[in-house]
């Protein structure tokens, strides 16, 4: 998939993570292992997975936010508008941060500086990238605060973060992210720390801003409900790898592989009938310091066969959907010993016999 030189123009992505690897602790922990992810201009992409699957590590790699002393980003490329961000100097990277790509963090409580007024914090990114007169700077702050729906901005800009509620703080974080008119926003679990009613407000705000400003977004989340409502395409991550990717509608309509099924089954759905027992994914994600040698989901997979533990499956197109829908699962691939899950109805009870006694219980 790597394209050298100018890419095919109609769908040349805004951002392209090309076989990106990120490892910690002198390479002992590979948090991101060869992910390939594209975001088109103005497109909204979801990156879903459980905690520790590497989704945040991938996002932080894009902006090079990890501690450089124990993190290695690469091999791989991070192409932003065709330029490889990994080749940039620290100063070159600084110019990208905030102005081209901005990030919104999970916890608005800790991501804001408690001893700085919110007005100054909103302007911090402007100060770093543009030279504005005092009046122009103030006008921009007020405009941004109005944009994200903070009432009476002229007085509120002189307040400190603790004087705002959780929902308002997350709005301020969004205003900071928007301040330099970036082309891409990385939203890392932005609603996890919020109450549901505030979450609904914030998601609504992001949705309207995205449409009016032509922003591309990567929504990093563990919540399939957020993915369903907020994204055009989805990447599902598991143990450092992308295990399934598809257009959002396609993924929910025809999820291809058992990990995605597991996520969908365990996601709370208020409109579904009440069941006495919920359907968990048994066991736990593997340690990234020592992942299983075959398919990484095999130890927890109730559909596994002999091939799964023997060899690691590639991310290959799902024969049922179009070529844009790919899954990392032998059950969906027409190879010798594989393909037994093609056309399987994921809602049906599992009639397949597990390979070993491990599956079915908690690994």
């Amino acid at each position, binding site marked *: 998939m790597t394209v050298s030189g100018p890419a095919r123009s109609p769908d040349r992505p805004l951002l392209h993570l090309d076989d990106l690897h990120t490892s910690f602790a002198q390479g002992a922990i590979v948090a991101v292992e060869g992910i390939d992810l594209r975001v088109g201009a103005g497109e909204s992409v979801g990156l879903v997975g459980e905690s520790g699957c590497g989704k945040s590590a991938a996002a932080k790699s894009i902006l090079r936010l990890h501690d450089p002393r124990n993190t290695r980003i690469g091999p791989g490329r991070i192409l932003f508008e065709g330029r490889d961000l990994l080749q940039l100097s620290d100063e070159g990277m600084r110019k990208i941060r905030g102005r081209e790509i901005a990030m919104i963090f999970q916890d608005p409580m800790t991501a804001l500086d408690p001893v700085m007024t919110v007005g100054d914090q909103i302007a911090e990114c402007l100060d770093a990238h543009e030279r504005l007169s005092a009046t122009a700077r103030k006008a921009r702050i007020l405009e941004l605060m109005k944009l994200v729906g903070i009432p009476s901005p002229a007085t509120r800009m002189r307040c400190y973060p603790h004087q705002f509620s959780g929902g308002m703080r997350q709005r301020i974080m969004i205003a900071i992210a928007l301040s330099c008119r970036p082309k891409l926003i990385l939203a890392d679990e932005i609603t996890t720390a919020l109450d549901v009613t505030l979450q609904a407000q914030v998601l609504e705000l992001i949705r309207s801003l995205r449409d009016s400003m032509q922003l591309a977004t990567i929504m990093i989340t563990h919540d399939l409900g957020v993915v369903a409502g907020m994204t055009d395409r989805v990447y599902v991550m598991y143990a450092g790898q992308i295990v399934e990717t598809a257009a959002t509608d396609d993924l929910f309509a025809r999820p291809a592989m058992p990990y995605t099924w597991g996520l969908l089954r365990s996601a709370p759905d208020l409109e579904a009938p009440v069941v006495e027992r919920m359907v968990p994914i048994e066991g736990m994600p*593997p340690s990234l310091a020592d992942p299983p040698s075959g398919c990484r989901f095999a130890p927890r997979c109730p559909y596994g066969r002999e091939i799964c533990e023997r060899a690691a499956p590639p991310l290959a197109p799902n024969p049922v959907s179009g070529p844009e829908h790919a899954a990392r699962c032998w059950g969906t691939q027409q190879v010798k010993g594989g393909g037994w899950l093609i056309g399987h109805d994921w809602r049906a009870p599992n009639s397949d016999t597990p390979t070993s006694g491990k599956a079915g219980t908690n690994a």
Partner: protein
Amino acid sequence: MTDVSTHTPHYVPRPRTTRGLRSPLGILALVLVVLILGVAIFCGLIAPYDPNKQDYNAFLEGPSAAHWLGTDHLGRDLLSRLMYGSRVALMVGFGAVGFAMFCGVTLGLLAGYSRGFLDDAIMRVVDAILAFPSVMLALGIMAALGPGLSTIIIAIGIADMPLFARLTRSQVLSVRERDFVTAALAMGARAPRIIIRHILPHILGPVIALATLQVGHAILIEAVLSFLGLGVQPPTASWGAILKSGFDYLELAPWISAFSGLAILMTVLGVTLLEDALREQMDPKSGAKT
């Protein structure tokens, strides 16, 4: 009921680093402290002379083959006196800090756990003691109690106690808000059990770090008190007293003050560096992070 896997998902051992006791400074600290402890314990065996024996042929003599560090104005071997002086220094250092730690931690636990009236009462007293400079306070107590090794230990201990009480109280206040303490309370645990089993172990790290630091401080105060003539009484060898006696002969025999000062410096440096290294070593970062 399902069975849960035994492997551990996000637990990754911390990579080996050269921090704490394994760092160069940590090793230096260990060497210094072990050396001084060794000298203090074995000075009866390794000291070349009796510390109080006078050599009438050698007054204020410079370093020589017979007297490696020279002699003082009474002809006593300086090396032997410094070696025996380490006993006094360490007894005072550890004794006073032990006393301060015991009293301070007890008061701090009571104050922090009770919060209410008892807390206010204890902390007012502690603040009052803290208001005096520790040397002045120890000086006052020594003046009242009269000189002597045990009174030095008590005096320095009282002067140091408020630091331990304050540190302990602040630590208790934060630990007692943690869920596992509430959980123990909800189980019906009595206060002594909660304090000893669940709070004390969590505050010991910083307390021990402070204690190590204060050992050096206590040794210094003892030297100051002896220098002022209120400390250990002659002829017992004390570094502060030796330093002081050297002052009278600074031009004739500068080595007396120089070597005794060096002994104090090395000891204080040793325990201070050790504190640094220990604090790094005991940093309770478990590496279990998701």
